[in-house]
């Protein structure tokens, strides 16, 4: 059985859909893949800025920092069928840092889970796109998040469930660095290692900022790789804006004998000069004028 099934349709973005399990990026294709994923990333970034700009509220910083990670997951690594969101053999993704919903929504829309027009209704009364992911409203959202520190636990549960059913599916969870201060993260970390969940990969969006400032000033996360290793995870570190770096780490993670952590070094607000590393844009929408400026920058990129 080829769990990948047919490649999904990605609304004209082209596809880099993996067709075999345990696939490893072929170097001959690397350049093509890189270009596609960077193109997708730029499109998602523009969507994020526009969605939040139009909504007048939202979290641009942490949405922009994880764009490449989402692009690599949805357009390179994960087996999924946008036209059949409930496909039992799909890989699962959990956005533990739920406030990055705009980036997820944009990725899902580009995949074809729903119409791109929905994006502009973000956060409006009646919209299928809530401020934080709601699995009952948005096709492609596996579980509702928004309260930090719960998604990794949910991902553990999914990994256990899929393993029980002997399904070859993998589970991916994206957590924040600020979020890693939540004890729930470490409860999940311990259980995942104990259970040897080799079908679970977590990615940490290590952008160095939370709301009240730099993580190292608020509550220092210290040596994150050492922490995760001491909790029994295999750890890789990548440049979170280098798509091939991310893809290769996602490939390697499948070889791990237990749960696998990819610490992605990222820049909060990445791609928009005045948002980059700017803690103020954690949870503040750009003004109309800022939005236009950001879009121009991204267009030029």
């Amino acid at each position, binding site marked *: 059985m080829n769990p990948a099934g047919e490649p999904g349709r990605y609304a004209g973005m082209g596809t880099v859909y993996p067709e075999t399990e345990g696939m490893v990026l072929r170097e001959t294709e690397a350049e093509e893949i890189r270009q596609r994923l960077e193109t997708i990333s730029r499109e998602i970034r523009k969507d994020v800025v526009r969605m939040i700009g139009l909504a007048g509220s939202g979290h641009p910083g942490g949405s922009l920092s994880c764009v490449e990670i989402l692009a690599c997951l949805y357009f390179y690594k994960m087996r999924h069928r946008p036209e059949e969101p409930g496909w039992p053999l799909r890989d699962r993704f959990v956005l533990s840092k739920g406030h990055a919903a705009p980036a997820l929504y944009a990725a899902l829309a580009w995949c074809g889970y729903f119409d791109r027009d929905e994006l502009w209704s973000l956060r409006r009364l009646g919209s299928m796109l809530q401020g934080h992911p709601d699995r009952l409203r948005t096709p492609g959202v596996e579980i509702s998040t928004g309260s930090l*520190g719960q998604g990794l*636990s949910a991902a553990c*549960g999914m990994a256990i469930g899929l393993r029980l059913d002997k399904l070859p599916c993998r589970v991916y969870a994206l957590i924040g660095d600020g979020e890693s201060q939540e004890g729930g993260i470490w*409860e999940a970390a311990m259980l995942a290692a104990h259970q040897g969940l080799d079908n679970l990969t977590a990615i940490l969006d290590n952008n160095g900022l939370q709301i009240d400032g730099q993580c190292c000033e608020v509550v220092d996360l210290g040596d994150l790789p050492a922490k995760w290793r001491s909790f029994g995870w295999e750890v890789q570190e990548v440049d979170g804006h280098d798509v091939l770096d991310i893809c290769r780490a996602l490939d390697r993670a499948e070889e791990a004998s237990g749960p696998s952590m990819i610490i992605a070094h990222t820049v909060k607000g990445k791609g928009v000069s005045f948002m980059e590393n700017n803690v103020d844009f954690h949870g503040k929408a750009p003004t109309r004028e800022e939005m236009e400026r950001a879009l121009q920058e991204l267009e030029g990129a």
Partner: protein
Amino acid sequence: MAGWELRHTRDGYADALLELGERDPRIVVLDADLAKSTQTEKFKLRFPERFVDCGVAEQNLMAAAAGLAATGKIVFASTFAIFATGRAYDQVRNTIAYSNLDVKICASHGGITVGEDGSSHQALEDIALMRAVPRMKVVVPADYYEAREAVKTVAYLEGPAYVRLGRPKAPVLFGDDYRFRFGKAHLMRSGKDVTVIACGYLVHKALEAAEELAGEGIEAEVLNLHTIKPLDRQGILESVSRTGRVVTCEEHTVIGGLGGAVAELLAEEMPLPMRMVGVRDSFGVSGEAEELVEHFGLSARHIAEAARALCDLAP
């Protein structure tokens, strides 16, 4: 407690789990280092591959349960009532209930009858907490059989449910053929003077109180309100409209629990005199179960007193 056969409600849970596990491979059970107390250990021994001990980590227990349910499992998550509802409230609310997942939280050690462990282990607000969560169903079985049948029922109701089980053995009120009717107040005794609504361990106290009152010529109707949410509005109103008075009885704070639910209903639909038998907004203490029932004013004597006081009021 003389004259009653005694059995644990949590044994009813364990037996239901075995039955469910036997016939439905989707059943998965999670615990948080209390499998011996909650009795999920029986399931673990029979179906080890479908049991996961999450260790002393209730937050993870609940959010992981949600994730498991999202893969199509029917998940039972157990620990003590105080930790299931209080320690993991946000996980239950924001991950399980908001996602509307099939997680059945079956928690033991609800109420004051936890006994000697004392306040930190006596869940006195769990019904209030779970009742406040949208989409949550709240069930408080009174005996072994009701627990067993309730668990089998909620397993197949869509979405989350909370089932509160006790620590001590409870008087057996029903039999092997007991049919649990989710969402329906269960008439245990008819009467015309006052409606006594009780749940869980206090149902037999209510029956004893009714017996006591009967000797004085007061005919109490006793409802076993095993399902606290959704509330059987019609069933309660029907009884209360006949008797004109209500006493609620719960092994729980009088704030926001069964008494609160009934008070909210009556206030909007049929304002009538009511008395609440429950813990009067205080923490528990160590002591023997029955001693504490007496100490906190939850005994048959107290229920009868409340009913008497109501009946003394002008109608």
